[in-house]
Every structure is written in C-alpha cells, then in structure tokens.
C-alpha cells in the first residue's frame, strides 16, 4: 500500500505541466507574397509567414487563394509558431476600394 502510494505520488509530481499552444496574430500591409511565403509590414517591422497548403485565405468573408492577394493589401494574419517559423493558418483581406467618382 505504501509502495503504491509512493508510486502514485511520484507519478503526480513528475507529470509535466502542459504548455499552452502559442499563436501569433499580426495586422499589416503586404510587401510581397509568393507561393510559399508572405511578408507584411507592421508597425513593429517586417514579418514573414510561411504559407502551407492548409493556409486559409479569406477575402471579403469568402474563401480565396494566395493569388488573390496583392502587394499593398491590408491583411490580418493568424499564425502559429512551428519549428522556429511562423506558419500562417488564416490570412484575411478585403477587396481594394475603388476611388469614388466625382
């Protein structure tokens, strides 16, 4: 009984504390976009995000693709840290507004 209690106590004490999965969000302006990488300018400087087949692109609330994204577009990027890189999970943007006719 004593041994079992000690084993249980050991197991409880040695259980590692689960780390919360960290994410990273950024708002900025696209400076370049390629098939595998997106670079944006934020007020903290340039940030690079890896684009994967799982990256979700959303334009005006509808599904889109990386090809719809252009330099100077405003974007909101939701990313996760993976192997020392920022992997974009979701990239949101809007259609560029046309200049109003006078």
């Amino acid at each position, binding site marked *: 009984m004593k041994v079992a209690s000690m084993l249980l106590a050991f*197991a409880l004490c040695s259980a590692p504390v689960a780390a919360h999965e960290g*994410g990273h969000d950024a708002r900025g302006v696209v400076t370049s976009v390629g098939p595998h990488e997106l670079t944006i300018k934020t007020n903290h400087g340039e940030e690079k995000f890896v684009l994967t087949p799982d990256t979700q692109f959303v334009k005006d609330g509808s599904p889109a693709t990386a090809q719809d994204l252009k330099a100077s577009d405003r974007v909101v990027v939701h990313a996760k840290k993976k192997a020392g890189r920022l992997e974009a999970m979701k990239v949101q943007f809007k259609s560029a507004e046309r200049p109003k006719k006078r």
Partner: protein
Amino acid sequence: MNKLCIALAVLVVLVLGATVGGLALLLRGGISAKVEPTRIEVAVAGKLRRVGIPGSFRQLRNPVASSNEARAAGRAHFADHCAICHANDGSGQTEMGRNLYPRTPDLRLPKTQQLADGELFYIIENGVRLTGMPAWGDGSEESKRTSWHLVTFIRHLPQLTPEEKLEMERLNPKSPEEWREMQEDEKFLKGSEPSGQGRKEPRHH
C-alpha cells in the same frame, strides 16, 4: 475444489496482470496525457467501445432524411458544441483535441465513418467513459433529434466545403476578448486604422 483452484489461479493471474500493466503505464508517463496512447491501448479501447454499444443501436438507421436543412442544423450545433475539440472540419486538430487522452479522432476517416448511424448516435447521446467525450443526451425528443442532425453532419464531414467551414467559424463560441479582436481586425481591414498597426502579443487559448 479443482474448479475453485482454477478460478482462484485465473483471478490471481488477472490481478497480477492488471497490477503489472498499471505499473508499466505509471512508469511510462505517470498520469500524463502527453504520451501517445500505445497501439495495444488504442486497439483495446476500440474493441471495448464497439462491445460497449448495445447491439440494438447498431441496427438503428438515421430517421432524419439527409437534406440541406438537416445538415445546416447539424453544422450549426457542431460548430457551437463540438468544434472546440473536434475542429470545424472534424479533423480533431484543435488545442483540446490534440492534447486529450486518447486524442480526438479524425471523424472524416473510415474508423468513424464506418460506424453505423446508431453507433454514432449512441456515442453522442451517452458519451464514452475515460475519454473526453461527454454524454450530450438528456433523453428528450429534442435531444434525440439534435443528435440525429449531428449524425447527418458527421456523414457530410468528408465533403465539407470551404464556405461551410467559414460559416462555422462565425458560429464558434467566442470570448469577449475574441469579439473585440475581430472588430478591431475588421476596422483595420476597412482602413479605418493606420496601416502597419500590428499586434504582437502571443496568443494563448
């Protein structure tokens, strides 16, 4: 007397086996949910789940006709109640799903899709012991109808469209902080905040 001796021997072997197995599990990772379930555990748990579902449920067919309305009802309920562990697309790739023990299964795969309608219904209504799956049913007709809608939606998961996934994201429960951030994102995208307004804080869920 002989029978009694055999029964006692079997009992001793079973108790010893359970003790050794339990000790091995404790030494392998204690009670931590971080270690991957062993193949034996996965196989035994799968068999036990199958055996644990009453045979009468295996014969049940979904009484709700598969329609856009039924799928939409199931989709909305899934987004609100299930997606926190199962993810909107049923992949189980959420912070909760990845870290439960056993891991949340990918509902799109044959292991789930090959279960009978009644088996899925039973699991939703009654939950599964020693897993993260709670019992959602309260025995009412309303609860049963909701569970059947979920069965309809689970069958549709392998064909989920990006549009449906986005619709579900709008229905996922959000904290006041998440609502505030969404509004700020929208303002920024509309151009009402200076460009380059980035947020750098690490995001924890």
